[in-house]
């Protein structure tokens, strides 16, 4: 079945530079530098990327960073915990706006 998302497209990501090579070059240089070992390890960065990939719900990123996490030595327990961290923040971000709701409601109410 045809879909908008094809796993093979991930391997063609570099083609995005065909009509704007300088911008793509700067992006990929930055991208590669971001994921290099720094104060955070490559493994830790891959876990962050995996978690964020779920919040932006990017299938390419989920595919790529699931593989990257496994190849950098993370296991499914750690990867799942990382998802719960971003899920808690995402849910918390909704819930904390309830304070705004309550303030407005209180102001409007007798």
């Amino acid at each position: 079945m045809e879909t908008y998302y094809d796993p093979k497209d991930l391997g063609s990501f570099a083609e995005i530079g065909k009509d704007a090579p300088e911008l793509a070059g700067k992006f990929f240089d930055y991208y590669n530098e971001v994921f290099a070992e720094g104060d955070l390890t490559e493994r830790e960065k891959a876990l962050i990327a995996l978690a964020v990939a779920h919040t932006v719900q990017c299938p390419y990123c989920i595919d790529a960073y699931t593989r990257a996490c496994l190849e950098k030595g993370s296991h499914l327990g750690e990867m799942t915990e990382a998802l719960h961290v971003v899920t808690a923040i995402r849910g918390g971000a909704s819930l904390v706006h309830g304070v705004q709701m309550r303030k407005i409601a209180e102001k409007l109410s007798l």
Partner: protein
Amino acid sequence: MSGTTENTATESFRQRLARHELRLERDETHALQVNVGLVCNLSCGHCHLEAGPARSEMMARPVMDEVIAAATRLPFAVIDVTGGAPELVPELPYLLRGLAPHTPRLIVRTNLVVLEGERGEPLMELYRDLGVTLVASLPAANQAQTDAQRGAGVWERSMAALTHLNALGYGMPGSPLELDLVSNPSGAFLPPPQLQAQEKFRRDLARRYGVSFHNLYTFANAPLGRFRLFLERSGNLDAYLDKLASGFNPCAVSGVMCRSQLSVDWTGRLYDCDFHLSRGINMGGEERLLRELSELPAPGTAIPAADHCYACTVGAGFT
């Protein structure tokens, strides 16, 4: 998501070497790997030899005598005993006692689980008394991945065996009784960088289980035997072969293990490595027996190349 790799699924390993103007040939040979048989108490999903409880191949004493004689006449700096599970070969103590005086470094590869119970205690004491280096299989520092690769319950039993070995002095900081771990990925993906993985294993095993070890080695799974069947069954074969080929590191060729070791099987036949052994690819491409070997192969001797060699040249390589 970033980075581009060459699409190489159709290029053979021989072609790849030629394109990089490389040859697979021997350096100085200093190690002998002795495969004492395919009988094993486990049936690990990554095993290139398809070892397991139903296998009966096992080295008998006459071949052990040939191995000991070879160790006496040839200068092996390392002798590395593997299987299967070497501990299930009844004459293993005889072989180890015969080899120990003739090499500065005698290694036994163990799956740990086989060391539990009545059989294990005297063997562990023999290892200690002979100063044997132990190289233990442990794919991950967690239960889920370990049991997925090696079978249900293996994690707990492995931790118990490691605790026991630590109590004997194996793997303890500063101890001469060397205990190293080997990690193969528990699936169709490549291993993490060795030093990073070693740091994580050391931290996790010490924190949660109080277990200590010396070195961790991480190796890619070869697409052979039971692991190849898993790749085929799970629809991962093509992608995995492409990943190995795409990650070809020309610099890794100079350090691959077959350049410096011989592998002998339970019948006394010679191979360039344990992967070639599993495929029946003879040393140098022709059938030779260890007992006929009067001198070590000369540097420059050609080694047959096969497509599974990509597993030894991906990333940092398999040394």
